[in-house]
């Protein structure tokens, strides 16, 4: 198994930014609707939902869903 320069940098960065209290994908999904509404309102995200932002920075799968959801919601509003 080999890692190139970019992957090495990403891994070190991901490792050093890891936190014990990170939420998982299911918790992120359960709160994604509230988080997205808060983001779209422009009024800031409640502190209780900030863990979602951290998770989205670490998890490509959830981030991808969030980006698609934002586009979809903007389309219907």
């Amino acid at each position, binding site marked *: *198994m*080999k*890692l*190139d*320069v970019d*992957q*090495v*940098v*990403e*891994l*070190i*960065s*991901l*490792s*050093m*930014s*890891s936190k*014990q209290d*990170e939420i*998982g*994908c*299911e918790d992120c*999904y359960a709160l*994604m*609707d*509230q988080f*997205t*509404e808060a983001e779209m309102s422009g009024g800031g995200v409640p502190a209780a939902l900030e863990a979602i932002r951290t998770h989205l920075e*670490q*998890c*490509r*799968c959830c981030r*991808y*869903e969030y980006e*698609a*959801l*934002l*586009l*979809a*919601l*903007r*389309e*219907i509003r």
Partner: protein
Amino acid sequence: MQEDDWIIRLRGVPAVRDAAIAELRAVLLRGLTRGLANRYGQVVAVEDIVQEALLKILASIDTFEGRSQFLTWAMTVATRVGISTLRRKYYQDVSLDAFNQQDSGRVELVVDKALTASGEQQRKELVEQLQQLINTELTEKQRVAVIAFLDGCSIDSIAEQTGANRNATYKLIHDARSRLKEGFNRLGVTATDVYKVLSNKAAV
């Protein structure tokens, strides 16, 4: 339509319910057509995805707690259905065996030449420490998941092939990241040190 009306209408008599479903279908179709466009480089059969999403929304409508607007919640459910469908198709030919069978599960970092050429001894040492930590601190399962993730595999795809769910796979990778961080800490390497050393990524 008012927010409360959606729930009332979707639970109403057949004629009312059917009209609400038709309306919801149109909204989801419009949103997903935009949200899923150009995802995973595929042409999307949005109508099929909307149909599957509608079934899921109607089946789980009792779990809607009103913490967001109904359409936000419904679109969140529909987006997950859509992205999951596209992701499954995109990764259907990718196998983790490719990562499993190479080099007896050990990891090699192929950056030595660039590092030597750059003359940055600190970066070279950091990468060597990382390689050591990967091969001593991580389980084989963690190594495979981390390498596959860094190679672009989705967590869903890794989960599917390892018989786990997305949450467990995210935790597996999270635990691996934490072990590497603890390993760096034991070696006296802090996050500040790492970011300082990696700050000029182009030179690595």
